[in-house]
C-alpha cells in the first residue's frame, strides 16, 4: 500500500464500501418473485386437475433442464449428450424394479441419481480435459454409445420397444399412484423442490462463483490457481446425478421406459428449452421447459411440420436478438421499468 495513501476515511468512500459489501452479502437472499414458480405449480394442481400427467412431465423436464443449466449456464460446458445421464437414471430405476424387485420409489430415484452421478464423474474425468468441437463430439458419442450398447442387450433393456408394465410401491408406503397422476405430480414437485434447494445453494456458493469464473475466463482461472479440471468434474457429476434423478422420475411416472431416452433428440430438445428460458439464471430452466412443453403440446398436434419450423425460427431469433432467453428479456424489461420509474 502506498505510504501516502490513507485508508478510506471520507464518508462517501465509506458509503461506497458498505454498499459494495452489502450487495454481495445480500445476493443469496430469497427475493419474493422466487416464490412465483412454486405458487404457479400449486395453482396448476388446483386449476388443471385433469392435466396432471402432463404436469409431471413438465416438472421432470424442469429438473432435467436445471441439471443442464449447472454445467452449461454456469460452468460453460457445451454438451449435446446429457440424455446419457437421464437414460442411466431411467434404466437404473426400471431394472432395479424388474430384475431386483426393488420398487420403493424414493430410494429408486436416489439409486438412479447415484449411478448417473458416478458414471458422470468417471466420464467427465476423461472428457472434460477437452473443449469445443472435441468435447461436443465426445458427449454425443458417449450418449450414443450407451444407447447402442443398450440395444446390444435388448433382452435386458427391452431395446427400442422398451420395458412396459413397470410397477412401483406406494410413496412413503402410503400414497398410491392414481390414474390421474395426482400423486405423481406432487411427488415430482417435492423432489424438484429438494433438488432446487441444493442447486440454488451450489450456485450462490464460492464453488458456484468459481464455475462462473471458469465460464468467463478459463485462462485467468488457471492463473489464479483454480483446480479447473477438478471443479468441472465435480459439477458434471452433480449435474449427471440430477439428470439421473429426473430420469428415474420419468420411469416411475410413466411406468415405462425405452432406449429412446438416450436419443440425440432428447439432448437437443433439452438445450433448446434451456436456451429459450435463459442459461445461467436458475429460473430459466423453469420458464424454458414450461413454455416449450406447453407450446409443443398445443402446436405440434396441429402440425408437426409447422412446429418444427417454428422452433427453428425461434432458435434463430433467440440467438440473434434474445441471447439470454425469456428470463433475460424479463430482466431487461425490469431494468428498463426501474430506470423509467427513477425519472
Amino acid at each position: 500500500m502506498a505510504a501516502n495513501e490513507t485508508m478510506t476515511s471520507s464518508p462517501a468512500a465509506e458509503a461506497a464500501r458498505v454498499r459494495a459489501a452489502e450487495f454481495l452479502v445480500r445476493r443469496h437472499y430469497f427475493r419474493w418473485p422466487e416464490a412465483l414458480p412454486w405458487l404457479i405449480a400449486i395453482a396448476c394442481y388446483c386449476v388443471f386437475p385433469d392435466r396432471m400427467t402432463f404436469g409431471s412431465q413438465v416438472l421432470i423436464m424442469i429438473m432435467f433442464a436445471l441439471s443442464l443449466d449447472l454445467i452449461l449456464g454456469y460452468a460453460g460446458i457445451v454438451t449435446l449428450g446429457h440424455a446419457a445421464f437421464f437414460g442411466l437414471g431411467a434404466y437404473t430405476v426400471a431394472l432395479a424394479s424388474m430384475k431386483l424387485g426393488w420398487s420403493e420409489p424414493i430410494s429408486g430415484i436416489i439409486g438412479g441419481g447415484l449411478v448417473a452421478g458416478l458414471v458422470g464423474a468417471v466420464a467427465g474425468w476423461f472428457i472434460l480435459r477437452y473443449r469445443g468441437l472435441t468435447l461436443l463430439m465426445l458427449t454425443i458419442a458417449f450418449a450414443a454409445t450407451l444407447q447402442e450398447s443398450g440395444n446390444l442387450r435388448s433382452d435386458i433393456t427391452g431395446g427400442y420397444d422398451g420395458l412396459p408394465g413397470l410397477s412401483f410401491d406406494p410413496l412413503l408406503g402410503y400414497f398410491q399412484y392414481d390414474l390421474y397422476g395426482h400423486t405423481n405430480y406432487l411427488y415430482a414437485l417435492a423432489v424438484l423442490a429438494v433438488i432446487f434447494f441444493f442447486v440454488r445453494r451450489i450456485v450462490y456458493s464460492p464453488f458456484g462463483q468459481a464455475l462462473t469464473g471458469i465460464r468467463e475466463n478459463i485462462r485467468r482461472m488457471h492463473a489464479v490457481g483454480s483446480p479447473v479440471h477438478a471443479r468441472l468434474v465435480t459439477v458434471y457429476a452433480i449435474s449427471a446425478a440430477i439428470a439421473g434423478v429426473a430420469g428415474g422420475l420419468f420411469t416411475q411416472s410413466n411406468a415405462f421406459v425405452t432406449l429412446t431416452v438416450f436419443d440425440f433428440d432428447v439432448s437437443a430438445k433439452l438445450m433448446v428449452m434451456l436456451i429459450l428460458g435463459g442459461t445461467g439464471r436458475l429460473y430459466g430452466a423453469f420458464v424454458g421447459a414450461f413454455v416449450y412443453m406447453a407450446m409443443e403440446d398445443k402446436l405440434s398436434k396441429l402440425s408437426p411440420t409447422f412446429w418444427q419450423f417454428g422452433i427453428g425460427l425461434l432458435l434463430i431469433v433467440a440467438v440473434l436478438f434474445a441471447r439470454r432467453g425469456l428470463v433475460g428479456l424479463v430482466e431487461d424489461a425490469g431494468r428498463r421499468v426501474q430506470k423509467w420509474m427513477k425519472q
Partner: protein
Amino acid sequence: MSAMPHAALEVQRLNCSFGALHVTRDVDLTLERGARRALIGPNGAGKTTLVNLITGVLTPTDGRVLLNGDDITATSQALRARRGIARTFQINQLFRGLTVLENICMTIGERDGNCNNLWRPAGSKRAVIDEALDHLDSLRLVDDALKLVRELPYGRQRLVEIAVALAQKPRVLLLDEPAAGVPSSESHLILDVVAALDPGIAILIIEHDMDVVMRFAREITVLVHGAVFTQGTPAEIMANEQVRAVYLGQAHGQGGGAHA
C-alpha cells in the same frame, strides 16, 4: 551454502522450442526477494514466452524453474499460482461479465480454498469481502466495485488486472506490459501503483517504455532472440553501446525506446 536464503525465483538454463523454432535459449535469471527487475528487448525477443514458462503456461524443453529453492518445473500452472506466483497478462484476462468486486473475491476464494465450498453462500464470508475491498481501496477502485469489468474504461480494467494479481498475495509478481493499451492520460495511475508495491514481493516487469523502466527497475535483463543479451543496473544498460544498437536505436533512453 545451506545458510544462504533462496532467491524468490530462479530460472536455470531454460530452453523452449516449438519444432524447429527455438524461442527461449539457455536463459538464466534470478529474482531475489523484493527484486525490482525489468525485462526488455525488441519485439519477438521472447519476453512473454519467458513469463509463460515461469508461470507454467508453457513447458520448457530443457532447464529448471525454482521457486524459493523448490523445483517447480513439473508443477502445473494452477499449483504454481497457489504457491505464490502471480501474473498480469499483456491483454487483460479478467472476468468481464462479473463485477470488479467479484473478480477479486473469486481470486481470494481460489487462493484460500474457499471456492471448494459448495454449501455456504459466498456472501457469508465477510472476511473475503472485506479483504477484497481493502485491495480495491489501495488501488482506488472502490467506487467501481459494483461495475461490470467490461463497462470500465480500459485503463481502469488494467488496474483491476493488477488488483487480481495482488489479491493472490504473491511472493513473485510478473507484470506483462502493465501500461500497454492505456491512454497516456491514465497511465500514471498504473505506474503509481507499480511504484508503490510491497517491497517484499519480487517483481519482474516486461516493459517497452524506458521512462517506466528507469523509474522502477533496480536491475534490467535484456532479451534478444530468446537469449539473455546482457544484464545489469539501469546505468550500466544505458551506457552499453551494444544494447543501444540492438534495441534502443540512436536516441538516449529518455522516452526514445521502441514502443510496441
